């Protein structure tokens, strides 16, 4: 029985791999953006994204094709991101009181905002960094919930499913998460609107 199971899965593996590679191509950018907003820097975002796809690959044999891949991937990402970030100290700890420093690497990968003039761009980058720094201070589960709701635009039901919790918890994490963010950004509140 063990022999048979192994043979079957060996044959299936190369096909799975092709299918999986296509899914990596399709979803890695979205996953990376979420990872970046969770981690706050590129080095950790790469680690988190890669870890999520490795774990997805290992469990890919259990993925039910009738379900959307992204909802399945969200679940794995949720688990990996929170698990890893809880264990690992931040690569870069930024304080809201200090001027925001952008690493060379960071600037290189950023998407230029062509709609804004130079001054506006500087201002929006500054804002972006402030908000990121505030996000960094949230407990991981709150941070992820806020990212899913406000960046990914997911419904409470979808977030509950992705983070293996219930809608009441999602609601409470968002409520508290946004309040924490707001307190962190209080001095910037007039620029938020």
């Amino acid at each position, binding site marked *: 029985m063990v022999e048979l199971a192994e043979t079957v899965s060996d044959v299936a593996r190369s096909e799975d791999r092709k299918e999986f590679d296509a899914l990596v191509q399709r979803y890695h950018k979205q996953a990376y953006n979420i990872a970046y907003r969770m981690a706050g820097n590129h080095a950790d975002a790469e680690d988190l994204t890669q870890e999520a796809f490795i774990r997805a690959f290992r469990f890919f044999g259990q*993925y039910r094709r009738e379900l959307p891949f992204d909802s399945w991937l969200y679940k794995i990402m949720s688990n990996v991101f929170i698990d890893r970030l809880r264990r690992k100290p931040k690569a870069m700890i930024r304080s809201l009181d200090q001027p925001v420093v952008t690493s060379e690497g960071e600037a290189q990968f950023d998407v230029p905002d062509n709609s804004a003039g130079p001054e506006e761009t500087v201002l929006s980058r500054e804002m972006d960094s402030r908000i990121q720094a505030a996000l960094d201070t949230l407990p991981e589960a709150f941070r992820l919930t806020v990212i899913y709701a406000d960046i990914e635009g997911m419904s409470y039901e979808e977030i509950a499913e992705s983070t293996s919790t219930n809608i009441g918890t999602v609601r409470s994490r968002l409520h508290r998460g946004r309040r924490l963010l707001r307190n962190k950004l209080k001095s910037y509140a007039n620029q938020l609107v």
Partner: protein
Amino acid sequence: MNCRRVVSLMSAYVDGELTGVEMLEIRRHLDNCAECAEEHESTLAMKLAVSRLRTIRPREDFVNSMLATLDVVQVPRYQRIINSSVRIFRSKLSPVAAALAVSGVALVLMSAGGMDNVGQQDQSQMVASAPYDGQAIEVKYVPQIPGNPISLSSSSRPLVVNESGRELTPKIELVSMAGR
């Protein structure tokens, strides 16, 4: 609806995640209460600020390096067997029965010593090792729920990663009874 209640529902209100009746009640309240209206403004501003964050792209060759990494990831034998068992059983059995059946497979593997190979066949750090205590005498298997290989809640145990932080160990717990 009083102010306290309105404030507690504000986040869900800006997300449009309340019942129609609640949405209407809050809207009416906001027309007549400056304090709550301010709370609404600021909650909405917070949501908008986060939603307007730039999309961060990975470096150009990131996806290729990730695909290359997958080349050296081995799916350990026990995992492949569990995966294909889940697939086979799921098509025939209810999720609970499938999980039980898979746990049976895992226990057979354990008793046959099949797990011993896991650490040896894994040479890269990408591959799981299965650290377990040889003195353990009670085996407790945490069944995988098919289609839901991971879970996230404060009560559930997260999947364990080894020291390199790269991989999870099989979800098999060995519990020593010596301490009881």
